[in-house]
């Protein structure tokens, strides 16, 4: 960018080429009043407030649209432009109901601030009489409220919905004095294309758009803002929790524009999903189950009981009879302390967490191929990639803010998105090509794609030669996997596979995005290895805007893995089976450690059946809804000798517990989360925890102390310092360095800048390793009795077992219950109407749920979201495991649909 020097209000400043006067002025700390400007949007020059004088021009120009040039002389504060601005403000106030005293936006509203600065006369402010407004598109909506009386018709809400969110749900209707913001045909917001991201609220310069839930809970000027990290998905949006200190209540979420990684954008869950923090159902005191009923207990009683029972079980049945589930919802510090407790105090490696159920195969597969099991590149790179290949990721629903970058790349940078997904997901709207493979046939598809690339000579020979090994194994493995061979397996026409392969292979920088659609199979590790093969074959690793990018599902699933909440590795992926690692951690923790790797999530549950597992300790996990084959899981929870559940709610799993320990939520504690791009970011305490709830790591430390192992930390920061000393990839992480912007690991020492993309000059394991992967069908095939393939997953509005998201009034209104998606033709054949309740069954169980008749899924396949306890998809899923990663096959099983 070229430097441009120009003069504003007598001051010489420097901007960069292409900037507008307003952008350059703001960058230099000079404010030019504006109402319709948002750096995320294309300038529109609508409000006219930023008018400035430019020497040599015979008329004033809007600073938000006029580009700077060398030697330009600008005046933004002359008496004349100030006079014009005052007139504009007064005109706005003739239609704006200036009820600042009762407005929620009081203290935040730019119009209010300028009215004060320009001393708009009282007479004009009082002139606009409040009128009873007719119903509008937000009437009755629980997410947000639009008040036309406060709207200044700047159009920012419409533009952000169009340009950033690309939903185009909003529009102006009518003209002149009757103009208002609305949806198409003024339909209720929840019936429009709106995704409830609330971006319109974030950009509204007045209080015209506001969160319904936040109204009346504290005007902006009285709210405390605490910068923290969102507790939903792995994108790790930076979020400000706005809290009312007088009531100790969460009020609303905001996010500053320009912030990494989300640039002020949030999705429905980040914006409207935190009501759970204030919920009356939060656990406030320890509970002990006596005679089948929970009774309130003191911390001493509960902790003594837990420590005694765990000690007893350990003494009687050995350390390996106890297992712990750590949590991808908890902080890095909580996870570190929890796994240290299981390893050093209990003395077993039986610690795991729900990453087992999402990306265990990623960690296993990518470590084999590359030497490091994490997303190779960064979120921001998607908007500059030439091609993005999305396979098995419903990105706009599961990682909505990351999807904005992909859409941005398509619309503003000409990127080509190609999608392989059994369903016609929303991202297909932006794609160059979509192919739908039958669930569970990914290896066949990927091998066929590689067969095309090799047979047409499109592979990157230099990359293969310089950076990889075992290439011949791949060539041999895919030799016979022609598109014609793959067609009957995947149901995709051979020529489509060819075209797809060519688009990917000829891109200058191609990025692969994948998620649960790849990992949650009994062949999950094979799928990941195939993805890695494809990336290496085309030289798309170790460069900007390329890579193998598994999107992590939970806010801190990356961190929980990094910190060793896995049965085979210590913090920093250091294998427990390597003697030197064990020695290192024994010395650091001053304890005798187990030399054998522990049991995984599903194995722990199955271990209860044969008595090898006697005690279980869950920190923030809910297997009674999240694990496959729920009838079997729930039986184990019922049968296990001693179960401790530490959580923020009395979850489905907590109901089975002997002792329940109340923990603080992310809004009430300090710590760090690591997002999907390996960025370690701060979590900060915004509120006091309810009742007697305590931080997870403190509870764990107390149990450790009672079991005779001294463990204490002054605060969360001290835990991070211990982590830095023991886990090389976190070596340079400390709270003072990540106060403002998080660091991406590997960050080896205090001076290391962090790592934007991995494997730049060499793979973590040296050379990238090709693997021969043979296609294996899913464990369970369709049959006469169960003729459908059932695939399960997430949807935009809810999150996992719904413990948090279902407490939101806005989300509950939009997405109140589960459903099964079924193709129109199948529904017609079975006589099923849209919205009608049907019975879905597999050999393991059955559920009753409404049918959603749609053409976005092929005939013969059905889809269910897994969030809903009243229609749990996991009653049906199969607990067949990937032999390497032990991940269950959530994505494919045989099922039947019956009209009832």
């Amino acid at each position, binding site marked *: 960018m070229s430097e441009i020097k120009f003069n504003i209000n007598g001051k010489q400043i420097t901007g960069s080429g292409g900037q507008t006067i307003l952008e350059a002025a703001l960058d230099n700390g000079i404010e030019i009043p504006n109402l319709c400007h948002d750096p995320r949007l294309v300038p529109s020059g609508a409000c006219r407030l930023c008018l400035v004088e430019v020497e040599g021009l015979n008329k004033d120009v809007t600073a938000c649209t006029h580009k700077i040039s060398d030697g330009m002389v600008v005046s933004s504060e002359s008496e004349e432009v100030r006079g014009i601005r005052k007139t504009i403000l007064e005109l706005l106030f003739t239609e704006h109901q200036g009820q600042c005293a009762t407005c929620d936006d009081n203290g935040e509203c730019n119009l209010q601030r300028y009215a004060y600065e320009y001393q708009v006369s009282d007479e004009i402010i009082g002139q606009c009489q409040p009128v009873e407004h007719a119903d509008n598109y937000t009437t009755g909506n629980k997410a947000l409220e639009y008040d036309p009386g406060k709207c200044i018709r700047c159009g920012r809400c419409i533009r952000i919905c*169009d340009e950033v969110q690309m939903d*185009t*749900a*909003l*529009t*102006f*209707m*009518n*003209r002149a004095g009757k103009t208002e913001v*609305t*949806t*198409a*045909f003024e339909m209720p917001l929840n*019936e*429009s*294309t709106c995704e409830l991201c609330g971006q319109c609220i974030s950009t509204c310069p007045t209080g015209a758009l506001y969160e319904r839930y936040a109204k009346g809970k504290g005007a902006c000027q009285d709210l405390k803002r605490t910068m923290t990290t969102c507790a939903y998905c792995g994108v790790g949006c930076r979020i400000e929790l706005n809290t009312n200190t007088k009531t100790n209540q969460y009020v609303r979420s905001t996010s500053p524009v320009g912030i990494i990684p989300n640039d002020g954008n949030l999705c429905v869950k980040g914006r409207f999903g935190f009501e759970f923090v204030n919920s009356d159902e939060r656990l406030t005191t320890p509970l002990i189950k006596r005679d089948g009923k929970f009774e309130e207990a003191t911390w001493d009683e509960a902790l003594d009981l837990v420590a005694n029972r765990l000690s007893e079980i350990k003494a009687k049945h050995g350390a390996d009879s106890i297992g712990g589930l750590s949590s991808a919802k908890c902080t890095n510090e909580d996870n570190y302390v929890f796994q240290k407790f299981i390893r050093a105090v209990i003395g077993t490696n039986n610690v795991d967490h729900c990453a087992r159920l999402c990306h265990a195969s990623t960690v296993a597969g990518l470590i084999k191929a590359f030497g490091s099991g994490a997303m190779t590149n960064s979120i921001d790179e998607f908007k500059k990639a030439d091609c993005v290949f999305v396979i098995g990721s419903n990105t706009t629903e599961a990682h909505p803010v990351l999807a904005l970058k992909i859409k941005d790349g398509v619309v503003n940078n000409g990127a080509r998105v190609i999608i392989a997904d059994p369903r016609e997901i929303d991202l297909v709207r932006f794609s160059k090509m979509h192919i739908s493979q039958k669930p569970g046939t990914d290896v066949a598809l990927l091998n066929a794609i590689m067969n095309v690339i090799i047979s047409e000579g499109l592979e990157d020979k230099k990359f293969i030669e310089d950076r990889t090994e075992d290439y011949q194994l791949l060539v041999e493995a895919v030799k016979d996997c022609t598109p014609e061979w793959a067609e009957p397996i995947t149901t995709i026409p051979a020529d489509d596979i060819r075209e797809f392969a060519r688009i990917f292979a000829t891109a200058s920088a191609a990025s692969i995005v994948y998620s649960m659609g790849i990992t949650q199979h009994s062949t999950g590790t094979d799928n990941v290895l195939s993805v890695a093969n494809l990336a290496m074959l085309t030289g798309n690793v170790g460069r900007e805007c390329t890579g193998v990018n598994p999107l992590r599902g939970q806010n801190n699933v990356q961190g929980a893995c990094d910190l060793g909440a896995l049965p085979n590795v210590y913090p920093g992926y250091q294998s427990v089976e390597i003697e030197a690692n064990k020695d290192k951690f024994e010395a650091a923790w001053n304890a005798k450690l187990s030399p054998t790797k522990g049991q995984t999530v599903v194995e722990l549950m199955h271990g209860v059946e044969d008595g090898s597992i006697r005690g279980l300790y869950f920190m923030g996990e809910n297997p009674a809804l999240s694990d496959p084959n729920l009838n079997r899981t729930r039986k184990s929870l019922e049968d296990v000798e001693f179960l401790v559940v530490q959580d923020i709610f009395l979850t489905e799993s907590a109901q089975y517990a002997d002792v329940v320990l109340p923990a603080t939520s992310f809004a009430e504690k300090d710590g760090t989360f690591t997002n999907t791009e390996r960025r370690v970011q701060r979590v900060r305490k915004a509120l006091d925890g309810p009742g007697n709830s305590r931080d997870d790591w403190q509870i764990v430390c107390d149990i450790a102390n009672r079991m005779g192992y001294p463990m204490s930390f002054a605060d969360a920061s001290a835990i991070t310092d211990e982590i830095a000393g023991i886990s090389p990839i976190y070596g340079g992480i400390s709270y003072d360095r990540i106060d403002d912007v998080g660091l991406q690991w590997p960050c080896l020492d205090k001076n290391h800048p962090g790592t934007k993309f991995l494997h730049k000059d060499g793979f973590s394991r040296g050379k990238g390793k090709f693997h021969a992967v043979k296609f294996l069908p899913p464990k369970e095939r369709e049959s006469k009795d169960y003729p459908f393939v059932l695939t399960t997953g997430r949807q935009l509005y809810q999150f996992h077992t719904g413990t948090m998201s279902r407490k939101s009034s806005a989300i509950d209104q939009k997405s109140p219950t589960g459903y099964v998606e079924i193709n*129109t033709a199948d529904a017609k054949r079975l006589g099923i*109407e*849209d919205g009608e309740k049907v019975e879905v069954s597999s050999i393991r169980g059955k559920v009753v749920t409404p049918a959603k*008749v749609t053409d976005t899924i092929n005939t013969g396949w059905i889809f269910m979201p897994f969030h809903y306890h009243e229609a749990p998809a996991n009653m049906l899923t199969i607990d067949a495991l990937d032999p390497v990663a032990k991940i269950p096959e959530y994505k494919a099983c045989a099922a039947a649909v019956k009209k009832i």
Partner: protein
Amino acid sequence: MKVNNKQVVLDMRPLDEILSSMPEISQGDLIPLLQQIQSRYGYLRRDVVCEMSRRTKIAVSRIYGVATFYEQFHLEPHGRHTIKCCRGTACHVKGAPEITEAITRVTGVSPGETTDDMKFTFETVACLGTCFLAPVIMIDDDYFGHLTVNKVEGIITNYE
């Protein structure tokens, strides 16, 4: 836009013809497109507009914005005949307010409304540009000038 599978969709053939007569439709074609749809269907039916949006990929909210901006577009069923009463300055001076009242008396509807039998839609317009005829009304494509309150009923009852 939520598509209701149960709804019986009306004849989409006119829409098919319109769309196939305009290759490569872009946002810029929206106004002529809406004009043709209105002339074929009588007004901008919601289901037709939504279908048009689906096929052209022009967001239905955009279409709604344009359709409500221009006076020429109607989102409600229109009467078989449109009465436009001029309320420009010349007509006003010559008694347009009384003419308006008379039309309301005869048809039973106020400006902006349509009669229950769908015979007439009554609108007022800012100026018909025929001040020499003041006060003037238009019914469909015909002008009726130099009106008096007494003539109104006779003119209107001539229409079937």
